[in-house]
């Protein structure tokens, strides 16, 4: 489990001291609408990419696009960290990128629809260095009619 006392001391120290500059009292909050009307896109920090994509480089601040109808067999991972489990991802993409679960919810009418485009970044970079990528992803999402984003860590 990802409780701090199960994480090695060196990694734990880094996690506790990590700069987590946040919204600092200006947390944006969008007026709710019914879940059944929402069009949802995923953003993962797992450095997932399609098999033929360029691999993530060390310290990468760029992003990759995962199509909504992706074949899980086409998704690989090129994250630099060795300090998280990859066997779950190897067994089931949905354990870190729940694209099939989202489609099931859409098919059942629980959510409105699944976006045509989903995104990944490498979580090894500082979030502020990902601002350019975030803006580019947001532009594509808006063009795709996305109104809701599910952020998934690794």
């Amino acid at each position, binding site marked *: *489990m*990802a*409780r701090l*006392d*199960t*994480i*090695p*001391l*060196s*990694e734990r120290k880094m*996690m*506790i001291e990590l700069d*987590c*500059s*946040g*919204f*600092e009292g200006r947390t*944006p*909050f969008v007026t*709710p609408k019914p*879940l059944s009307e*929402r069009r949802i896109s995923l953003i993962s920090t797992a450095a997932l990419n399609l*098999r033929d994509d360029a*691999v993530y*480089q*060390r310290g990468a601040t760029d992003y990759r696009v995962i199509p909504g109808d992706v074949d*899980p067999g086409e*998704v*690989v*991972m090129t994250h*630099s*960290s*060795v*300090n*998280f*489990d*990859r*066997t*779950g*991802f*190897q*067994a*089931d993409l*949905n*354990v*870190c990128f*729940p694209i099939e*679960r*989202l489609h*099931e*919810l859409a098919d059942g009418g*629980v959510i409105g629809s699944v976006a045509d485009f989903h995104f990944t970044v490498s979580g090894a970079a500082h979030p502020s260095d990902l601002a350019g990528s975030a803006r580019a992803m*947001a532009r594509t999402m808006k063009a795709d009619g*996305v109104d*809701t984003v*599910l*952020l*998934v*860590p*690794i």
Partner: protein
Amino acid sequence: MATTQISLIRIHTEKTNPPRALWVPFELGRPLGVPGDVASQTRVLMAALGLLDRESGPVLIDCTEDVPDDGVEYDEDAMTGMVCAIDLPKLPDANAPASVLGQALLGEIDGLAPWYDLAVRSRGRTTVGPSGLEIKAAAKFLADFLEDQSTRAPRDDLEKGRVLKLAYEDLKAYYTESIAAQPGYGASLRVENWLFNETTFGRALWMLRDICRASDDEYEKYLGGNSIVPDRQINPPNSIKGAVE
């Protein structure tokens, strides 16, 4: 656009204070919990999406879904005590030179091949491949590097250190996908303990770590620092006193 998120490290989410977050008690790498458990994953997903109904925020709640205890401890017995049912070639001596390790590595890959093929058939996919190398070519590059750090990378469109990283990560995926076809290897730590303590490849990775840590090359030094062997193999948590709450 509204956002909701899954949180694995609660303290990070407390600090960043995003609009909506669901903290989950799962291990790093498994934010939705249990691989292949559609019902459980759906419950986690719905808990995260359910936060979208909140009228105001920020909101951070704890997920009530949990996973069964995998029963794997961080003690020394658990690190070395598993007996793998796959009949792999005998491990080389602890002080075997890199050349011997390289040959043994190729034999080990052959020994795992039926299980890797079975895993791929069973899952309908593999995550091996980002290096762009055949698995034995990846192993040969690793073995050559262990023997001679000036060896050329088998592809020249990336930094040599990056090719090396992709090659050994492909090998890790080949090994861990193979062993997962065996019963009793569902827990990530059990797989990891086997890989780093019971295989020739694991021995090669420990040797690679030593070489990279001593290297003058900046990229190799970076790899040796924290990108080859997981911290929990180097410093098992339960062996460390003074846990931070």
